């Protein structure tokens, strides 16, 4: 995941760049996850698996079937959104009322996807073709174009979702459903269609994360497990229902992780534990998360 780059020498630059990119990747996944959680009340644990599947779809189209990159991305986007919507409609939506069942189904679907990829591609690490080659001079730092591209794509998609939700006509019904499903239904908002739309957006975010960030590192069928933990953590740490919060938390967790890896390479295996510790500490002092809706709790 984290790639040391030649040319960038200063430690803080490494931490900054990698933190931003990994944070962006986590933020995209956390955003998709919290969107579908907020709108359809579906705790979709399979969401990071969509990210993994997207990476493998892109791999299949571009390296196995040898399509060019544009075609690959369009095809993967269409395929993954279709898959996501079908899974949502056929498997998750009918049992939506039972939260615990949804939880398990999501998890098991993720495992199924992982196993399927293991059967088709085996467990070895693979890498996606980079979108851009070469490097760029920024001040006295040298950054590869792929990193720049990933960073800008991540930021653009975050901005795009923000625009879609808060500045466009489509955002109003989505936010309405997230606030109160029954009332939104009574107001004539086709709630089920909104949920499908949200599912499509959230899968699309996973595809973007896979397309832009995955080429930096390696892909393998188990690559969804660590993001799963991080995404769950970020959504809670940021405060349930707060999109701003989960994005912030994703970046915080990414920076914690990246700093640990660069500052104490020997303790890199502790990255999960340290992220968890950070979350636990925050929750003990701020039980509603960073940006959770502040409510005078009953105690």
């Amino acid at each position, binding site marked *: 995941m984290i790639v040391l780059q030649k040319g960038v020498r200063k430690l803080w630059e490494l931490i900054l760049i990698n933190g931003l990119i990994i944070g962006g990747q986590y933020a995209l996944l956390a955003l998709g996850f919290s969107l579908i959680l907020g709108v359809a009340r579906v705790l979709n644990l399979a969401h990071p698996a969509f990210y993994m599947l997207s990476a493998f779809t892109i791999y299949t189209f571009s390296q196995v079937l040898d399509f060019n990159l544009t075609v690959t991305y369009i095809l993967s986007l269409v395929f993954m959104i279709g898959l996501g919507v079908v899974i949502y409609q056929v498997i998750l939506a009918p049992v939506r009322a039972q939260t615990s069942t949804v939880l398990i189904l999501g998890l098991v679907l993720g495992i199924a996807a992982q196993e399927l990829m293991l059967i088709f591609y085996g467990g070895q690490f693979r890498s996606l073709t980079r979108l851009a080659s070469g490097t760029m001079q920024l001040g006295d730092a040298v950054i590869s174009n792929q990193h720049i591209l990933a960073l800008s794509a991540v930021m653009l998609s975050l901005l795009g979702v923000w625009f879609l939700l808060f500045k466009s006509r489509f955002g109003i019904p989505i936010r309405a459903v997230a606030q109160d499903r029954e009332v939104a239904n009574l107001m004539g908002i086709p709630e089920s269609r909104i949920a499908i739309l949200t599912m499509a957006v959230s899968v699309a975010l996973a595809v973007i994360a896979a397309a832009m960030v995955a080429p930096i590192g390696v892909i393998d069928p188990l690559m969804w497990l660590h993001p799963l933990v991080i995404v769950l953590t970020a959504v809670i740490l940021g405060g349930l229902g707060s999109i701003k919060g989960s994005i912030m938390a994703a970046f915080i967790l990414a920076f914690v992780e990246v700093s640990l890896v660069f500052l104490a390479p020997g303790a890199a295996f502790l990255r999960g534990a340290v992220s968890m510790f950070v979350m636990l500490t925050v*929750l003990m002092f701020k039980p509603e998360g960073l940006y959770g809706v502040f409510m005078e709790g009953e105690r």
Partner: protein
Amino acid sequence: MFAYLARKIWRDFQGEILALPTRTILFAAAVALLLLPLVTDDAYLLRIVATASIFAVYAASWDLLVGFSGQTTLGHSLFFGIAAYTAALLNLRFGLPAFLTIPAGALAAVLAGLLLSLPALRVRGPYFSLASLAMPIILMGLIFSFPGLTGGEMGLSGISRLAGTRTGEYYFLLISMFVLTLLMWKIATSRTALIFHAIREDEIVVRVSGINTTYYKILVFCCSGFFAGMAGSLYAHFLRVVGPSTLDIMMSLQVIIWGIFGGVVTIYGPVVGVFILYPLLEYLRIIPDWRMLIFAGIVVVTLRFMPEGISNKFQDLLERQCPRCKERNIFMRKECRICCTDIGTCSRVG
């Protein structure tokens, strides 16, 4: 005297177990498991059943915490792992025998329950779920940090056996399972469990009813920790190897799969879930590549069509609740076996 006692026991047996098909099935299954070593000496099969009975205790303890009290934890492996490591370390480093290390492991898990109840008193709902997810991951970090003591990635091996023979171990585990699950079932049907139920439904109201919820929450964490810990230390002594996999996130998630597949808030539901799913997963080893995929497929299809879990589904199919006295009856009966109300025309209770 003896004849009287025998008749009484038979009558109770008839009234409590034979009257209800689901209980009859459970009883028959238990008897079958007890007789299994007499019929076969297939070591693989016996080993699977023995492991399944350990996991059954583990899954039932999860139900006690999550199903009954609504403290949805994603880190149940904390109890299992901490007990397994404690038992293994005491056994290997201090040479304590199994009958001491098993309670010691359970005790360690009770302490872990105390620790886990701290965030539970502070944060609720999904926030707690995540806080609980953090605990085993942090503990795993600690275990990796002291490889000298804990064996690091490789874990600890060479733990002493539970009993001299395979059959001995089998019976030891099976009977422990029966005793522990019956204990849990007793707890789950007691007065105290009523408060656990109520805490799940609305904690604030329980407080305003004059009940010290802090005490009961800590209590349920310790109870659940104790039983999961028993399972963990039995596991250490049965497999004779303890590795980080006992604390793994998959260990926590697996128990949720078993529990929900079997049906929550029943105690016996998760046990049934384990005894169906664990052997299934083991026997799927004949097609190793497709094993997890088929397993996942079966779980998805089952839960898609019976989201309330398999044991609840079968109970609704085979039994009907009397609308008047709420006792359960076999589905063929036209009138309630307790109060003789006509139930032939009522619909099943869903």
